[in-house]
C-alpha cells in the first residue's frame, strides 16, 4: 500500500475539489493494478492530451479549468504538449473564433496551474533536460521514448491523467520503465542497411516497431546516429510498436555505461537483421498517393529544433513553393522565435512556407483542410495522417522540399 503525504491525503479527501480527488484516485488505482507499493519522486512532468481541443474536446478543457479554479498548483516543473492550434497564428490557419476561444480557456487553466507553455512534444528544446536516471512523467509517445533512450531518464507512457496527477503531487507509480530490470534489451537489431538521413531512421523505426511491439530493442550498427536521427527512430518505433525505450550500442547512455546489463544475451528473444532493401520497401509501402499532385508538405513531427529549421531554410534559398502546395513546418514557439532572430523564419516565409508553433498537423483539425495528398519526412506523422484517411508519402527533407517547390511527388 502506498503511503500518502499529508497533502495527498487532503487531495484524496476532496479538500481541493472533485477533480484533484479523482486524480489521486486514478494514481492510486494505477499503482494498485500494477502491484506498486511506492511512488517515485519526479523531476518534472509533461502533460499530455488534456488540453488538445481536437482530442480531449471541451471535456478535457473543462476538467483543467475546474482543477485550476480549485486552487491546486503544479508541484513540480510541468511542461506542456502541443495544443490544437497555433496560439499566435491561429487566424492564418483558418481557425474559427469559437474554437480559438475554447482552446485559450485550456491554456489559461494551464497558466493558472503554473505550467510552462512550451506547447511541444519536444520539451527538451525549451528547457526540459532530465538527468540520467531521473524519474519523469510524460505521456506523448515520442517524448517518452526519447527521454528514456537518449537521456536515460525514466518514464512509462503515463497516460494523460497520471501525468496530470503527477504534476499535482510530484510523484508517479514506480513500475515498468521506472525500474532498471524492465529496461533490458529483448530484441537485438543488427542494422546492416546504410542510413543516410533522418527519414531512413524513421523507416527503420517503423519497420522494427512492428516486430518488437512492447519489447525493448537494442540496435547494433556501423551507423552512428545523431540526436535528430534518434528522435526520428524513437518516434516511429513508438508509433508502430508500443515500446517506450530502445538502446543503441555505443550511442545511448545506459548501454554505454552498462553494456552487459542492458544487452544480456540470456534476455534476447530474437535477433533481426536489417538490410537496405527492407528500408526501401518501407518507403514504397508508405506511399499511398493516388496521383503525383501534392497538397501539403509537412515537416516537423516530432517538432523541429533550430538546426533543422536552418537546414530547411538553406534548402529553400532562392526557391519558391508551388502555388498549389502548403508547406507546414512545426516547431516550439521558442524555436520559431530563434528562427525569426536569425532570419530563417523570414526566408521560409518568403519561399511560401509556414512555421507552425504550439501545434502540429496531427493535432490540428486536419480533416477540415481537405488535403488529399500529403508528403512528410516523418514516419510517425505518416502513420497518424493515414489513419485519418489522408493519402500520404514519406521521404527525406530534401525530397519533401522538392515536392513543395515542384508541386509533385515523383519518387
Amino acid at each position, binding site marked *: 500500500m502506498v503511503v500518502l503525504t499529508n497533502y495527498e491525503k487532503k487531495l484524496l479527501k476532496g479538500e481541493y475539489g472533485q477533480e484533484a480527488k*479523482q486524480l489521486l*484516485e*486514478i494514481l492510486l*488505482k*494505477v499503482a494498485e*493494478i500494477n502491484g506498486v507499493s511506492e511512488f517515485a519522486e519526479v523531476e518534472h512532468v509533461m502533460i*499530455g*492530451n488534456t488540453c488538445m481541443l481536437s*482530442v*480531449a*474536446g471541451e*471535456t*478535457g478543457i473543462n*476538467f483543467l479549468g475546474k482543477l485550476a479554479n480549485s486552487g491546486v498548483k503544479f508541484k513540480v516543473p510541468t511542461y506542456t504538449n502541443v495544443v490544437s492550434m497555433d496560439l499566435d497564428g491561429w487566424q492564418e490557419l483558418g481557425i474559427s473564433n469559437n474554437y480559438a476561444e475554447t482552446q485559450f480557456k485550456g491554456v489559461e487553466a494551464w497558466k493558472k496551474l503554473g505550467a510552462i507553455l512550451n506547447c511541444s512534444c519536444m520539451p527538451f528544446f525549451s528547457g526540459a533536460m532530465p538527468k540520467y536516471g531521473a524519474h519523469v512523467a510524460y*505521456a506523448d509517445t515520442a517524448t517518452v521514448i526519447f527521454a528514456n533512450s537518449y537521456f536515460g531518464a525514466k518514464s512509462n*507512457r*503515463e*497516460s*494523460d*491523467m*497520471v501525468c496530470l496527477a503527477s504534476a499535482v503531487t510530484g510523484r508517479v507509480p514506480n513500475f515498468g520503465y521506472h525500474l532498471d530490470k524492465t529496461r533490458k534489451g529483448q530484441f537485438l537489431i543488427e542494422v546492416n542497411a546504410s542510413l543516410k538521413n533522418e527519414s531512413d531512421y524513421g523507416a527503420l523505426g517503423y519497420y522494427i516497431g512492428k516486430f518488437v511491439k512492447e519489447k525493448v530493442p537494442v540496435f547494433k550498427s556501423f551507423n552512428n546516429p545523431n540526436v535528430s536521427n534518434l528522435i526520428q527512430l524513437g518516434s516511429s518505433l513508438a508509433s508502430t510498436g508500443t515500446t517506450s525505450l530502445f538502446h543503441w550500442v555505443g550511442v545511448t547512455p545506459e548501454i554505454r555505461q552498462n553494456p552487459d546489463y542492458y544487452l544480456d544475451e540470456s534476455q534476447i528473444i530474437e535477433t533481426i537483421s536489417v538490410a537496405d532493401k527492407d528500408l526501401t520497401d518501407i518507403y514504397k509501402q508508405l506511399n499511398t498517393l493516388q496521383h503525383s499532385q501534392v497538397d501539403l508538405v509537412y515537416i516537423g513531427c516530432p517538432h523541429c529544433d533550430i538546426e533543422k529549421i536552418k537546414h530547411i531554410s538553406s534548402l529553400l534559398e532562392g526557391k519558391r513553393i508551388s502555388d498549389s502546395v502548403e508547406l507546414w513546418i512545426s516547431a516550439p514557439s521558442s524555436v520559431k522565435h530563434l528562427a525569426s532572430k536569425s532570419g530563417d523564419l523570414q526566408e521560409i516565409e518568403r519561399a511560401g512556407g509556414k512555421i507552425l508553433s504550439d501545434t502540429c498537423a496531427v493535432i490540428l483539425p486536419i480533416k477540415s483542410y481537405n488535403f488529399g495528398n500529403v508528403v512528410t519526412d516523418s514516419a510517425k506523422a505518416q502513420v497518424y495522417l493515414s489513419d485519418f484517411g489522408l493519402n500520404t508519402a514519406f521521404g527525406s527533407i530534401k525530397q519533401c522540399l522538392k515536392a513543395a517547390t515542384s508541386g509533385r511527388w515523383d519518387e
Partner: protein
Amino acid sequence: MKIYKGRSISKGIAEGDALVTKQPLSFFGGVDPETGFVVERSHELNKTSITDKILVMPSTKGSTASTWALIRLSENKLAPKAIITIVTDAIVIAGVIIGQIPTIDQLPFDPTVKFHTGQILKVNGDKGEVEIKR
C-alpha cells in the same frame, strides 16, 4: 444467488443488460460519443449501442484519447451502466473514475465466455463483485 468476486476499478453499483464482446474495443474512434453506438466497421459490435449496457469485454485498444471519449459518453448520458474487463490500463481507469462508470476486472474466469449478451448482471464497483440476476 451466486456472486463472483473480482477487483474494483471504479466505484458505484449498476444493474442492466449484458453486452458481451470477445474483441477489444477502442472508445476513441470506435464509439460515437454523440450516439453511443459502436462505429468501428470491423468490430463485431458495429452499429450496436453500448449505452446503459453492462459492457463485458477483454480490454480496450488504441489511442490514449479513449479516456476523454469515455468521459464524453458519460457527460452525454450515453455511457455503459458498468464495465467488466479482463485487464484494465491507466487510460480506462481515468475514463471510468472521472466518468463515474462502475468497473471491475480480474474475475476468476474469462467474463467474455462466462457471461452472454442479454443476461441481467449487477455490478458492484465498490466491492469489485458481479452477480447474475437472470
